[in-house]
């Protein structure tokens, strides 16, 4: 069985989240720009235009936060069912993936468990993964396994509500500031317009951060656990993972479990990390994946 090559095997494009977020921002501005220019409801020189522009910028922020909520709350992404077994190399709980997870909790990823898989499953990885994660020990292939964490979804919902509230609050503040700056000359009008945009965008971001924190704090986080006895998973555990396999755009189209539906815990390795595939190959026999004959 050929060993999958670590790193990028098929060069992919920009990640799906990046293109969707930036594309959404560009689309909002483009549609709003066209709509505003043909709209005849407001007299020229009024303070309505700066507030309109600020509202659109706020909506751009709001919609991108909603995207994260939609994405993180989708418990059943389309993909094929799969099963793999191995030893846990790394556990990355939700909200700890990067330093920005605390500031912008609505962008956090679900609980992630990276499993060094048995040699028996290399063909699955080799055939379906554009990017292969590997352990440090001997570059043994790993599969990232995501566990649905309701706190991540609720951080997204809280962030969306917070961003919406922030846009409304920001518009009220911006209205007062625009009136104070006035529109005596064209450059003052432009400055008022830009200040209004910055106020509303900042308010939307602050609202999203606050709402995300509230949503996160209001939800219990069990962390990744084994099915049945609900025992918390640890680095070094032998596990069989069953769930939905997808090529995940945000991880360079690596093959991942998104999400794990069943985890069978088989015991714990006597070795210490980092792990080689030879460990579960020798010590995890049999695993809980159904045997396919033929």
């Amino acid at each position, binding site marked *: 069985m050929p060993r999958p090559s670590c790193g990028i095997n098929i060069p992919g494009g920009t990640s799906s989240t990046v293109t969707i977020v930036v594309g959404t921002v560009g689309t909002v501005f483009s549609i709003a*720009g066209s709509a505003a220019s043909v709209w005849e409801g407001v007299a020229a020189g009024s303070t309505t235009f700066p507030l309109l522009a600020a509202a659109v910028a706020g909506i751009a922020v709001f919609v991108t936060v909603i995207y994260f909520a939609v994405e993180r709350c989708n418990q059943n992404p389309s993909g094929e069912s799969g099963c793999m077994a191995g030893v846990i190399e790394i556990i990355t709980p939700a909200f700890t993936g990067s330093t920005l997870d605390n500031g912008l909790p609505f962008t956090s990823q679900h609980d992630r468990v990276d499993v060094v898989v048995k040699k028996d499953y290399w063909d699955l990885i080799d055939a379906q993964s554009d990017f292969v994660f590997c352990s440090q020990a001997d570059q043994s292939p790993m599969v990232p396994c995501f566990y649905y964490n309701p706190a991540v979804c609720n951080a997204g919902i809280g962030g969306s509500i917070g961003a919406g509230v922030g846009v409304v609050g920001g518009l009220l503040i911006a209205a007062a500031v625009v009136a104070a700056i006035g529109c005596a000359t*064209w450059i003052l009008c432009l400055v008022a317009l830009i200040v209004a945009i910055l106020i509303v965008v900042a308010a939307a971001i602050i609202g999203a951060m606050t709402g995300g924190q509230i949503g996160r704090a209001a939800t219990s986080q069990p962390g990744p656990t084994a099915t049945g006895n609900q025992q918390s998973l640890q680095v070094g555990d032998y596990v069989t993972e069953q769930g939905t396999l997808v090529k995940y755009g945000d991880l360079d189209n690596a093959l991942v479990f998104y999400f794990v539906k069943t985890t069978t815990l088989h015991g714990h390795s006597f070795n210490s990390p980092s792990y080689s595939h030879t460990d579960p190959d020798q010590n995890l026999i049999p695993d809980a994946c159904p045997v396919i004959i033929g």
Partner: protein
Amino acid sequence: MGAIFRFIGAVFSRLSICSLVGVIAGSFAGFVFAIFEKDHPGLSLSTQQLFAVGLLLGVTGFLLVLYFVGLLLRYGVGPIFWPALVNSLLTALLTVFFAYWLKMPALYAVAGLLIGVVVGALLCRLCRSIDGGRYAKA
């Protein structure tokens, strides 16, 4: 909702990160200039004044890029700061001058978006030849 997001993602999926930075800066500059012109119909601006407007919109667009790309999408503020600043300023300036020439406000934001794609792609190519594409790959 998810289908709309996936459609938008598919439309922009072939663009590099440099072009995507240009998309934000260009569409924003075009949008604000359209609103501004709607607020001041028939306003005549000199080249210097257009340049000032372009710079103002470029800096504001740059701040949006720092938020969306640097923070929200986790590229980090430091690694993208200078390339994004150059990209945003160039895109906004070109958008403002082109829009002023075009005199069709309904198309300003779309034109800005397309200008951003082109400017980003050219800067990406330039970066690759200078630093081996650290920014392009970031």
